[in-house]
């Protein structure tokens, strides 16, 4: 033992890989899943707040505001299109993960860029929707509690998409500098798919259920 170098002693403690964990899952992946589970609580809170306030805009004691509600102005065909775009981005994301698992960096980068473009299109659609609501329909963030709850929920989702787009762009940038780990792309993919399933719920609960 006395002849062993410091590094060799470390290898005896972690014979296969220094990243081996007791669960068999890397810390990064486990951390992302725990974060996503906690994000369920965050979005659950925002969705239930919207549901409670959506039809009670004006006559709440102590609060002022107009009695218009966001659902009067929903453009379902337009929102369906943006939902379809986000759904498509989930497909391109999973194809990107599959490509890196095959070691195909070129296709991985291609699908990552496609996902980024689709995510940006979704964000542009949301910005357009908000602009119409604000300037044409007079729905401001402080118009009443119903509009506040609506903007807070959909805006929070939009921020998640924006963070996802930044993460994807970062991955594309890193892929030009060095070899990517498949798991890094997978972890970003998990975040992206979560953003998609949250929209699946928001689209149904907020936009489609009368």
């Amino acid at each position: 033992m006395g002849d062993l170098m410091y590094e060799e002693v470390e290898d005896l403690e972690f014979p296969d890989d220094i990243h081996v964990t007791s669960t068999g899952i890397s810390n990064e992946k486990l951390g992302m899943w725990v974060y996503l589970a906690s994000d369920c609580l965050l979005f659950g809170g925002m969705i239930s707040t919207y549901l409670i306030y959506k039809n009670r805009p004006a006559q709440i004691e102590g609060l002022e505001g107009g009695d218009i509600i966001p659902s009067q102005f929903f453009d379902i065909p337009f929102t369906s299109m943006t939902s379809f775009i986000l759904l498509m981005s989930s497909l391109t994301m999973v194809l990107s993960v599959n490509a890196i698992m095959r070691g195909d960096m070129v296709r991985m980068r291609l699908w990552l860029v496609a996902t980024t473009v689709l995510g940006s299109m979704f964000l542009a659609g949301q910005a357009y929707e908000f602009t119409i609501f604000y300037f044409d329909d007079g729905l401001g963030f402080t118009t009443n509690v119903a509009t506040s709850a609506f903007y807070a929920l959909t805006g929070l989702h939009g921020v998640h998409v924006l963070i996802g787009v930044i993460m994807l762009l970062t991955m594309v940038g890193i892929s030009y500098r060095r070899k990517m780990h498949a798991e890094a792309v997978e972890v970003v993919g998990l975040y992206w798919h979560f953003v998609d399933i949250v929209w699946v719920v928001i689209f149904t609960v907020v936009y489609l259920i009368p």
Partner: protein
Amino acid sequence: MSTETSTTKGSDDLEHEEHTHGGTDKQYFQIFWILVVLTALEVSTEWWDEWFGEGSRPIAVFVLITLMIIKFFLVASYFMHLKWDTPILKRIFYFGMIVAIAVYLIAMTSMNFWTDSGTTEFNDPPPAPPPVEASD
């Protein structure tokens, strides 16, 4: 993997298998098209009132919630690899989701979300029970 299979496959195939723990591209396209059809069905409920009358509304809500749950699990199981990953991840995620649903169902119930009397007042009391006729 059996020894027989190992000997009949090339090293590239083996390497590919070792690094893949999800579905194939073809499978993902299939899931995507299923999701597209389900979304189209969801969107169609917007016009069910015109096509089938207002009586179809409760059915539409039921269909929408069912389709939402199916879409949720399809994305989580296939695109997020929960179908193939270790069960501990499934437990972590679904535990968070179930806790969220339970907490907010309780919160909404406490705010009379289900028993709202139809006015726009916040936290209005549940509707009064029907009067009971006095018996001798």
